[in-house]
């Protein structure tokens, strides 16, 4: 940081980088809206069998969450190794918990 001369060009470069990231985030947002509409439409239209709808909407939710984590919460950026480790740790315990509560609690 001490070496950083911070001339106008580097500031511009960073602003440019922020802008580039912002563009990605807007695209992400558009995709999330589309996925949400798709999930609602699938359920409302009732054209596919329910055994297909459930995995599809769960998949759509999963993709949305990955977008949130990686783009909105910047997990794709550098310096997020430890956050990623702990989020994935939390997700594995979460998956096991939910698996348990949908399988081995008697009924």
């Amino acid at each position, binding site marked *: 940081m001490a070496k950083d001369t911070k001339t106008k060009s580097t500031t511009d470069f960073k602003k440019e980088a922020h802008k580039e990231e912002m563009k990605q985030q807007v695209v992400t947002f558009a995709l999330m809206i589309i996925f949400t509409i798709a999930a609602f439409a699938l359920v409302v239209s009732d054209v596919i069998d329910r055994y297909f709808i459930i995995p599809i909407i769960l998949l759509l*939710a999963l993709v949305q969450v990955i977008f949130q984590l990686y783009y909105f919460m910047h997990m794709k950026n550098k310096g997020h190794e430890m956050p990623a480790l702990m989020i994935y740790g939390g997700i594995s315990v979460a998956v096991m918990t939910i698996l348990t*509560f949908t399988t081995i609690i008697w009924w």
Partner: protein
Amino acid sequence: MSNEDVLNPKRMPHEPEKATLEGKNKFLGFWFFLGGETVLFASLFGTYLALNDSTAGGPSADELFGLELVFIMTMLLLTSSLTSVYAIYHMKNNDLGKMLVWLGVTVALGFAFLGCEIYEFYHYIHGEHFTFRSSAFGSAFYTLVGFHGGHVLFGLLWILSLIIRNAKRGINLYNAPKFYVASLYWHFIDVVWVFIFTVVYLMGKVG
């Protein structure tokens, strides 16, 4: 780094939220906290999934839920997630005014969401006589969705207090991590909602 530099930095670094050790600690600690929150909500989701058929003769998910309101609520919360991204974008460009505007929009959308949720609960309780106590399904539903709603409320009050506290002074290395962490929290609320509308409402409708 002296206290003076933290409050009035001569130049703002590229990532003001992680420029100080305190900022780095906050950033990491909050992410870890979200890892724990994942398990917390998973336990609530698990409980809900185990009990969502236990209606004890009361209304079932399919009869109860309408998707119009849920769709509006989803759009509100999703959009608020994007507006908080805008706020952080302007924070990184050291533009206080624009950041506050976008945070204000985020808060407004959040309150709209919360209003819808309160309306929904009111409707279930007085219109459908479906309460927290009427069945295990009722308990699980209100607990899961209510926990999320509680998180929304807490987030709104948090962001509001940050806005009010820092409205008159610029972005600095002391408050930048606070804004950043609050936005992470807000995104996480949205992550949970994505699963709520999918698992509770959409899957409830599919049956």
